[in-house]
């Protein structure tokens, strides 16, 4: 049977604007001056960005989110999607155009995983074959083999798998906007970390506009292009990119909420590719030893980094162990510093260096070829407020550099 291929993500991402939005569950109390659940919230989420609403429990994050798909109606103010007030839309139609993921997932226990993923396509009246094809495509996208999972029931899945199905389900009709309420809150830390990474990988590909709620500041910093820190009573305290929230908290509340270790947290925001790498003395296996040895004495760093013929690092050789004659053999090299790539965060890089008890990490490209080395001092320099994030130095460009 020829399968109808679903169209690829051709729709653009939406722009979401909150304009002076307030919500009070008890209007009488509000009139007496008691704080509402959300208080005069104004912010704009640009198209294709992840905006994380973060704050302590009860600060109005869920309420703010549910007003977008009208599961909750605001007491005052308006919410615009691409300039159109959501209040003017038919609520069920609006919801079918917005992906929705919640912490408890809420898969339909009586339907197979395939049917669960195809819920919105079915509501939209897609032909059955197209629903099926789309469900399979999405299961693959979230890393679940359709042949294995399609016909199972939700009770037969682990928490992490269920959460993936929840994300697949929300993506089914290719919505330009996704609302996610603590989607990774109910899984254990290891699975959460993995789901977060997969989520970022997916978003790099799909570029949806995403409103993401969490009470976990680390998750907010890791996932958000923009972070909105909220305070109990539904006040927006700060709305900025994560680096700015960490470097310049707008209030004492924000500073407290991001924690005393915000300097360290900034490490997880910067990637190796964004800092200046140092060159290092290198030589290839089989090169003349005497010449290489001489070069190490011209450099303050007393080691030679030995490379294989394809410029892939093998290990360090202490200058004192380099013979004066003959050629360099691979057996001279001692175990390596950790291997980093441009996408490793400084936090992970530092952690790997501490684990290996070394001062330097070796940075390689996708093919494993040497790009340069990253030192502990370079990491410290990157955290200084004046650090120039664009100053990517030309790394060692191979043997004989």
């Amino acid at each position: 049977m020829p399968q109808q291929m679903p169209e690829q993500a051709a729709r653009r991402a939406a722009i979401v604007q909150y304009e002076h939005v307030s919500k009070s569950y008890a209007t009488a109390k509000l009139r007496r001056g008691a704080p509402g659940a959300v208080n005069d919230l104004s912010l704009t989420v640009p198209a294709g960005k992840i905006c994380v609403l973060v704050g302590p429990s009860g600060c109005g994050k869920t309420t703010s989110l549910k007003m977008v798909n009208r599961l909750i109606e605001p007491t005052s103010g308006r919410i615009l999607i691409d300039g159109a007030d959501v209040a003017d839309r038919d609520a069920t139609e609006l919801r079918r155009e917005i992906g929705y993921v919640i912490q408890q997932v809420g898969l339909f226990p009586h339907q197979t995983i395939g049917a669960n993923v195809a819920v919105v396509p079915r509501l939209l009246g897609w032909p059955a074959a197209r629903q099926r094809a789309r469900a399979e495509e999405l299961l693959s996208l979230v890393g679940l083999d359709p042949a294995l999972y399609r016909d199972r029931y939700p009770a037969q899945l682990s928490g992490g798998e269920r959460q993936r199905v929840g994300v697949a389900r929300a993506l089914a009709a290719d919505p330009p906007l996704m609302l996610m309420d603590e989607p990774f809150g109910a899984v254990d830390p290891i699975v959460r970390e993995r789901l977060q990474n997969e989520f970022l990988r997916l978003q790099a590909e799909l570029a949806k506009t995403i409103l993401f709620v969490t009470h976990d500041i680390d998750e907010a910093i890791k996932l958000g292009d923009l972070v909105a820190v909220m305070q109990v009573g539904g006040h927006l305290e700060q709305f900025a990119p994560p680096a700015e929230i960490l470097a310049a908290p707008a209030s004492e509340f924000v500073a407290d909420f991001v924690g005393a270790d915000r300097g360290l947290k900034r490490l997880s925001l910067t990637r190796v590719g964004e800092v200046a790498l140092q060159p290092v003395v290198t030589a290839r296996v089989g090169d003349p030893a005497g010449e290489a040895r001489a070069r190490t004495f011209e450099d303050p760093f007393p080691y030679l980094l030995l490379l294989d013929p394809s410029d892939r690092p093998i290990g360090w050789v202490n200058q004192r162990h380099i013979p004066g004659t003959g050629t360099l053999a691979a057996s001279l090299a001692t175990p390596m510093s950790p291997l980093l790539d441009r996408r490793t965060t400084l936090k992970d890089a530092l952690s790997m260096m501490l684990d290996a008890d070394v001062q330097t990490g070796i940075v390689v490209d996708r093919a494993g070829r040497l790009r340069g080395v990253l030192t502990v001092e370079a990491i410290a320099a990157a955290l200084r407020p004046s650090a120039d994030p664009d100053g990517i130095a030309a790394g060692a460009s191979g043997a004989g550099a």
Partner: protein
Amino acid sequence: MIDWGWLAGHLDAIAYRTAQHVYLAALGVAIGFAISFVLALVAARHRALYPPISALAGILYTIPSLALFAALISITGFSVVTAEVPLVLYTLVILVRNIVAGLDGVPAEVLEAADGMGHTRRQRLWRVELPLAVPLIVAGLRLATVSTIGLVTITGTISDAFGGLGYFILDGYNRGNFLTEMYAGAFPSILLALGADLLFVRAQRRVTPWANARTVEATS
């Protein structure tokens, strides 16, 4: 002790009464279910109506059946309506409560997800809430059917034309405890009740495969 000759001579009558028994019970449960379904949906939609609906069904259940027959005969005569009204009324309390409990048992997050994805009220009811209520609805039908099969026996007190297998029990009693005839009514009706029970257990497994599906391997 058992008069085999009598049994052999009455096989046709036993078959006829068994069929009648099934018919009277099935009709009562079917009508009772239709009424209960509507009442339960109304109660689930308008929560304030549930306590009075449930209380009324409970009161109807407590009316002694013989008294009800007596009252009905003066209105509906010796008709099948008189036989069915008590059967139907007695199913209501079980069925309404089970259907409502089934709808109430749908997890809040499932409802929230259903709403959030854009189901209308009607779509949510038919595609999500009712399918998830099926195990409790079937459990209610099972109870109602078994108890109705027992109750049919007494409809024979209205007229010889009703009563299903209960006819033999009453008739045997009237003949001065003619045990063979009484057993001819009692045993098949017990078998009918057991058979119906088994049927519903099977049916429930069939229509709710998801309720039996439990953990395969749990990998993330």
